[in-house]
């Protein structure tokens, strides 16, 4: 009897496990199939290129029709004359759904099963929040460590001298004879007066103030017309860290001009929309910042369409890297021909939530790099430098720097 009562629940549990296992295998298959075939145009709870799939079984007259539609929608439209299907086709810009002849009935059933049991992820969205939240750890002035340390030292010195003074005074009170042996107690005020009047102190103060004044003036004068560290607030809180760093989108994907021309180019809004047609919510600011793109370009996120005859507005980005008008700089020369990484001049952009100017962009900075950088002389661009090629071949020179091909000549950049 014992055995019998014990085994019955076991069997039930086993059956439940098998059922769940069997079901989850099926659902997983459905998920896999959905991701491979449907996800590029359909979301389950939201409209994308095609309609949201939630409740799809209820919307179709019969499962049979739905299956036929999925397998070959253009053929279905032609043959079945189903008003619902025709309306759907009209609603979605007359773009026929891709035919999926490779999907069997079982596959479609698995996908529909997955759609029916889909739960939108809730907790995982919060996980992304950590990105870019941390404040930028700019260089902290060492003065901020020195000052408290100095303060502590002064407090300690005052406390000690007070304690010693009190000890001496009490000793003198107890034994008047000790007056001759023990030193005279000098008050802090008197001591400070002596210190201030000492000529070395005065000299040190004068030298310190002069150095400080001169140094500040020097710094201020050299920073005139330079913007190193300039970090203005932009109209959209676009994070390079999120796009280039975490999502690993190539810089040149958006800055199309970097390899093709003088300016690296601020991306036009259609480039933003390549992704943001589908991505309407960011991890940090939700929909607010992306809505600014939609507002500028005229995208109706609800309907998933561009608004017709919309008057587009420019986004007024603030220019950070400014070269004076009397300098010529060409991005393609450096990026395409020279093969220089963007980060060499712009710093670790992929870690910046808000971009700042990394380099001083001063002439000395340009020239320093031109003197050190070796030119990739195999590049066909340099085939005209026959004399230098000859010297390289003979072993007269080991390499050619930018300076070697005129990279420090005035008129190379100033003309």
């Amino acid at each position: 009897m014992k055995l019998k009562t014990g085994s019955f629940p076991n069997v039930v549990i086993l059956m439940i496990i098998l059922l769940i296992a069997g079901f989850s295998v099926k659902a997983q298959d459905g998920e896999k199939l959905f991701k491979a075939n449907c996800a590029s145009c359909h979301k389950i709870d939201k409209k994308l290129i095609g309609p949201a799939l939630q409740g799809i079984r209820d919307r179709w007259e019969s499962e049979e029709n739905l299956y036929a539609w999925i397998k070959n929608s253009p053929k279905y439209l032609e043959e079945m004359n189903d008003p619902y299907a025709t309306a759907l086709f009209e609603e979605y810009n007359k773009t026929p759904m891709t035919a999926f002849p490779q999907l069997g009935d079982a596959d479609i059933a698995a996908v529909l099963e997955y759609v029916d049991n889909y739960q939108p992820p809730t907790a995982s969205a919060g996980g992304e929040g950590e990105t870019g939240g941390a404040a930028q750890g700019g260089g902290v002035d060492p003065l901020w460590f020195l000052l408290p340390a100095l303060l502590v030292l002064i407090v300690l010195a005052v406390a000690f001298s007070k304690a010693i003074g009190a000890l001496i005074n009490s000793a003198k009170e107890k034994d008047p004879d000790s007056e001759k042996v023990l030193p005279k107690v000098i008050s802090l005020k008197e001591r400070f007066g002596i210190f201030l009047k000492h000529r070395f102190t005065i000299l040190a103060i004068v030298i310190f103030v002069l150095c400080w004044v001169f140094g500040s003036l020097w710094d201020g004068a050299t920073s005139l017309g330079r913007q190193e560290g300039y970090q203005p607030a932009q109209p959209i809180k676009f994070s390079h860290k999120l796009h280039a760093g975490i999502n690993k989108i190539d810089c040149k994907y958006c800055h199309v001009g970097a390899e093709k021309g003088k300016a690296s180019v601020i991306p036009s809004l259609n480039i933003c929309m390549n992704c943001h047609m589908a991505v309407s919510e960011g991890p940090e600011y939700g929909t607010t910042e992306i809505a600014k793109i939609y507002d500028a370009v005229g995208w109706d996120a609800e309907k998933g369409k561009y608004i017709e005859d919309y008057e587009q507005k420019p986004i007024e980005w603030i220019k950070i890297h400014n070269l004076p008008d009397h300098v010529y700089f060409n991005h393609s020369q450096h990026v395409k021909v020279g093969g220089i990484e963007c980060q060499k001049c712009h710093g670790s952009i992929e870690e910046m939530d808000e971009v700042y100017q990394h380099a001083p962009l001063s002439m000395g900075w340009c020239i320093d790099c031109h003197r050190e950088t070796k030119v990739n002389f195999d590049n066909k661009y340099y085939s005209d430098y026959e004399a230098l090629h000859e010297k390289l071949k003979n072993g007269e020179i080991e390499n050619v720097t930018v300076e070697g091909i005129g990279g420090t000549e005035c008129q190379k950049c100033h003309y």
Partner: protein
Amino acid sequence: MLNRLLTICIIFILAFTIACNDPKHPGFEYMPDMYHSKAYETYAPNPNYKDSVATLEPVEGTIPRGFKPIHYNSSPEDYERAGAELTNPIEKTDEVMADAKHLYTIYCAVCHGAKGKGDGTIVERGVFPPPPDYAVRLEGMPDGKMFHAITFGKNLMGPYNSQLTVEERWKVIHYIKELAFGKENPTTEGEAVAEASTEQ
């Protein structure tokens, strides 16, 4: 008198250094007359134009020098027509393939993945819906349809005509087909042309 002068000096310098260290302020300029272009630069606002935008779009109907216009629009009918009419004008050489790989890596791989399996970085992170695997989706697709899709976009993919020139698009198509079908390329030019002619 001397003391007062000194304090004024110190306050002035302090204010000066603080102002220079404010990252929201671009700093000061000395004789700015040679700094700023008299001509309107690429992104400088130009008050003479609508919205002050200096970078105007070309006048409708004009074409840049050396540019060959393509006579298609973004409609599904033209997608079919491009598939039937267009063939890849660029010869597949090692140099072309090296260029194409470079372009593919910049513009396509974020979504389509380095091997064209539809597993690029933003897809893997779950940010963007996965595109189909080339090997499955592109079977029997003529080059012209691919060209149309890259030029005008298809489904969730946006148009890439502002990022890739016509030549670059054809180069990338060579590379995409290599990813989909391997180096041998079962759907070669000849077949695509044959298919195009039957569709007509």
